[in-house]
């Protein structure tokens, strides 16, 4: 592949101008980069939206375990990286997910490690942990030029994941019918980890090369879409164009990042977990550090919970400690009542119905929230179908997850922060009183 090295020169004049805004920016970067042999840093954008900074490289990680940030726990990702990596024999590949029966596929060799250990899943028996040790073959990672070049990388740095199989029969499309293929199950498994580790993603982008067949696939909270088969020999031009676009043209939004959030740090920085500017209602909030919790399921709500501060909060000026809130980011089922609506009902019930409502002391204090509106279609809320326009099968209107956010003022503490038992019991009592008040005494709000 080094033979294509010297031909990464773009001629902006010949590039189509259909995707004007994005491409103009990228062409400018191309001009700058391609005329310099040194790896120069992208010209900083006029704003500080790091989603539009494109500095990427391909990494072969098939013998390495991609990591997560220190302190970020994602079920299924090993915590003993060093021991684990030492036990992986170079050149071998892992089985498909669900390979409990030992069927590792025609072009795979089962992992030889005996030290595979699930991270806190409490399931160390048998071989079911084969599901947990996913790693792609190659990845396109966001990599700021000023960062040292390293062979290892973090899951949240992945922009695109690439899986390689030797045989075309291992491809993602079923030979007949619509049965879930092994490769799609494998990709989906990696996608769920990718979406858990890289915050605010709408979908995860994957490439597969199986023999001379290559495919593009995405996975989101409603499922996945796999392209038709392309032949790497017959469709070599398309392959070149796709690789070029993924590596040099498409920004983080094009590759799945939620267009309503703005990363305030490079998505590829190893040292700094990026903060995100998130708008809820009329206010903007800045995420602080790692998410407090994130879902690791692929299909479903994809919940992320963050500690956030209000942007430009006047109460923060001159103070060291900012007032913190809780931000919850979920894909809600469109047929269900929105969580923010439930909170609004709780906090603004009809007067005649609240005479017997003892108190709301144990209920989280609701600040703001609602469905997220699409910046590209201001009258529409963001749904899975929003990014599937033009491809994929039709999504059932009743099964089209809607992006939903809410901000809560009540911020609890982790169990290990309680310094004595009586405080812990008082907190438990408050939680219990809130539950009783709302669900047992206020009958119109019975939700179950």
């Amino acid at each position: 592949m080094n033979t294509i090295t010297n031909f990464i020169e773009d001629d902006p004049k010949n590039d189509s101008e259909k995707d004007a805004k994005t491409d103009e920016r990228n062409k400018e970067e191309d001009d700058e980069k391609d005329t310099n042999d040194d790896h120069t840093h992208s010209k900083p954008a006029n704003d500080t939206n790091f989603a539009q900074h494109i500095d990427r490289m391909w990494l072969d990680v098939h013998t390495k375990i991609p990591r997560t940030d220190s302190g970020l726990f994602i079920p299924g990702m090993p915590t003993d990286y060093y021991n684990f990596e030492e036990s992986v024999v170079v050149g071998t590949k892992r089985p498909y997910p669900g390979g409990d029966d030992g069927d590792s596929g025609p072009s795979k060799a089962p992992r030889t490690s005996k030290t595979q250990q699930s991270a806190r899943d409490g399931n160390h028996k048998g071989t079911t942990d084969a599901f947990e040790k996913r790693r792609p073959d190659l990845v396109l990672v966001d990599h700021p030029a000023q960062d040292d070049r390293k062979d290892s990388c973090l899951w949240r740095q992945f922009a695109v994941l690439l899986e390689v199989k030797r045989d075309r029969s291992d491809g993602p499309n079923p030979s007949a019918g619509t049965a879930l293929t092994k490769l799609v199950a494998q990709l989906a498994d990696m996608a769920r980890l990718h979406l858990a580790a890289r915050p605010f993603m709408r979908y995860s982008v994957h490439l597969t090369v199986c023999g001379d067949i290559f495919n593009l696939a995405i996975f989101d909270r409603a499922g996945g879409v796999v392209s038709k088969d392309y032949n790497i020999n017959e469709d070599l031009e398309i392959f070149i164009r796709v690789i070029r676009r993924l590596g040099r043209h498409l920004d983080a939004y094009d590759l799945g990042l939620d267009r309503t959030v703005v990363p305030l740090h490079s998505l590829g920085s190893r040292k700094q977990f990026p903060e995100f500017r998130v708008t809820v209602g009329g206010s903007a909030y800045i995420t602080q550090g790692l998410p407090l919790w994130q879902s690791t399921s692929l299909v479903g709500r994809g919940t992320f919970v963050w500690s956030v501060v209000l942007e430009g909060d006047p109460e923060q000026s001159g103070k060291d400690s900012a007032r913190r809130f809780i931000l919850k980011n979920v894909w809600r089922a469109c047929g269900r009542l929105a969580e923010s609506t439930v909170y609004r009902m709780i906090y603004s019930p009809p007067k005649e119905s609240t005479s017997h409502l003892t108190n709301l002391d144990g209920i989280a204090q609701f600040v703001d929230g609602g469905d997220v509106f699409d910046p590209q279609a201001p009258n529409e809320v963001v749904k899975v179908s929003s990014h599937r326009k033009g491809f994929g099968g039709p999504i059932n209107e009743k099964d089209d997850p809607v992006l939903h956010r809410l901000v809560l003022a009540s911020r609890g503490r982790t169990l290990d922060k309680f310094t004595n038992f009586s405080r812990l019991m008082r907190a438990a009592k408050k939680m219990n009183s809130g539950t009783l008040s709302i669900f047992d005494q206020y009958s119109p709000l019975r939700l179950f």
Partner: protein
Amino acid sequence: MPHYVSSTNINDAKTNLKAILATRVSYNDPNIVDALVKPDQVSDELVKTIKDHILAHQVTKDFLGAVSGQTVRLESEMYKPLVRRSGYPCSQYSRSE
């Protein structure tokens, strides 16, 4: 140390993946590449140059032939640059070699 513990049950997630996803994947989609990646945005001249260069080198031609014939060898037997593990920026690729 992790600062919290997830309640996600791995076995449930596995069941979720296989059972729920099975009916939620669209295969053989003819439009996703054009709609999502927009490959036609890359200049024809650049593509032609890269393609010509790839096909002008016997090593890469042999490799594509092996891919097509599904006879790609093991890493230990392969042409070394094809199995390197260091990464290069997309703006640079192998210029340092």
